[in-house]
């Protein structure tokens, strides 16, 4: 959809929907929200809905970054400690790489 064609209220509501949906463990949605509405919220001449949009965009962006850090940290920890954790790690694993202890 082309947001440049949409009315401001529509844009705001779209931004809001994306924002609230992202709370369901959907950092990707937050990331998309932040990137998509970034220009709208920050680099366009001000209009009344922009203030709220800015808030949504900023929080979405920060939220997705935090999620990213958390996921990376978990992946690193898991791949390093997988063999140590034994059975628990096996139950958690989706794919167990071959040939590596």
């Amino acid at each position, binding site marked *: 959809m082309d947001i440049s064609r949409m009315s401001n209220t529509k844009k705001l509501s779209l931004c809001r929907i994306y924002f609230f949906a992202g709370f369901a463990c959907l950092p990707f949605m937050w990331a998309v929200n932040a990137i998509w509405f970034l220009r709208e919220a920050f680099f366009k001449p001000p209009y009344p809905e922009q203030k709220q949009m800015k808030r949504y965009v900023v929080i979405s962006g920060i939220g997705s970054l935090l999620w990213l850090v958390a996921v990376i940290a978990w992946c690193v920890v898991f791949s390093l400690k997988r063999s140590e954790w034994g059975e628990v790690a096996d139950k*958690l694993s989706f*794919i167990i*790489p071959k040939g590596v202890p």
Partner: protein
Amino acid sequence: MDGHVSIEDHSVEDGSRTRNSGAAKEPRATNPSDNDPSTPMAAEGAGGPTPQPPPGRRPLTEEERAARLEQRRQRDREHMERQLEEEEELVLKYGAQHVIKLFIPVSLCMLVVVATVASVTFYSEKGIYLLYTPFHETSDSVAKNVMGAFVNAFIILALVVVLTFFLILLYKFRCYKIIHGWLIISSLLLLFFFTLLYLMELLRGYNIGLDWITVSLIVWNFGVMGMVCIHWQGPLRLQQAYLIFVASLMSLMFIKYLPEYTVWVVLAVISVWDLVAVLCPKGPLRILVETAQERNEPIFPALIYSSNILYSSLTMAESSTPSTSTTDNGGSHDGGEAVADPLQQDHHAPAPAGGVGRPTISTAPSSSRRRRSSEAEAGFGPEWEAGRQQREAARQRRVAEHGEASAPDVAGGGGAQQPQEEEDEEERGVKLGLGDFIFYSVLVGKASSYGDWNTTIACFIAILIGLCLTLIMLAIFKKALPALPISITFGLIFYFATSYFVVPFAENLASEQVFI
């Protein structure tokens, strides 16, 4: 507006109306000043050769007025012709741009498929086949295998035909909810289940370990975002990317689950079917298009890749039960279409006779018992069902230049001209059905699965050439056309020619150290 100008306007293509009025304003503007006794003779500047003496202050006689009118009409006519020519040029130039705009997604889809086939061996492993292809080409004699392939292909064709007619029935009886629900289920299946499988094979192929938590997070995010982008509103690029990904997933399923010769025969048979279904007066796809036109609805925006902004809800027709792909017309009436709909309605209202989005075939609901009775190996029953649908959708391919003939009716609004023109340009995107993407990628992927890059590249180029030709024909005929036949024909010819003639030839040359 002056009475003369508007009459003339009606005789001209709508699109140039506002421009014309702008042009006509100029000569018209001199008229009042002519008649106005207070202005000094402005008549000399009235452009063109004026045989009459400058009227100056006296009012024009009847003949003079008539003659002047005639001149103005002539000028306007020439102006209109010039503008028509310009517009035609614009259309053609536009056409080339859109060819390129279609090249990129088609190539991307093929690239994903080829990359996957080349790197992950899962998709070239034989052994598990679809329920609908009972002949597995296991015998030693080539003739038997080919026969088996033909029988398989006709079974599949029969299925496709049944599903198509079912879709048409559903559409005629306005069972939009069923179609819509179907589409949602299929895209759910595709976006979550197939993606999970794909991820699993990818990780296995690259020997990367991952845990359930991360995997479920990834699939959940990917799937939900995909559903939102395809069925509702999302950034355009993301939507296109998802469609390309989904199309390549489907192609991979086909490549994996169809036996060798069957793939080629199925491709050939499906393109013939596509030709018949789209061009014959009784063809199902044609019926679909005409019905949609009668109802003034955008034709099945789902399952269509559109190169312009006006995308509506595109969905992969993957349904867990029946295997038809449906384009969801009802989907376009969904809430998400808020922006798209008014624009599209505008365009479809005046003259939908021009290019229309291609309908894709919807699938018929197959019984779920099929799923239960299908083999348990890798659970490919439902996968196949989904594939089936995709194939249906694939069949339906129509490339249409949308909204081209229906230039917006700018009711004398000079001010509204700009945005209307922009809309027009944006609307005039070429649409290609996702089934076409799938079958193109199946061809190239299958060619690449044999390991030889020459054949792969030859098929790729053949398909692009076919696509170009199809688009040119579309620009000439301005109605929905099947995109499969030409490209697939070229692709098949190139494939067999390259693998049986060119490759041994090149190898011999290389071994003899002869360079040409």
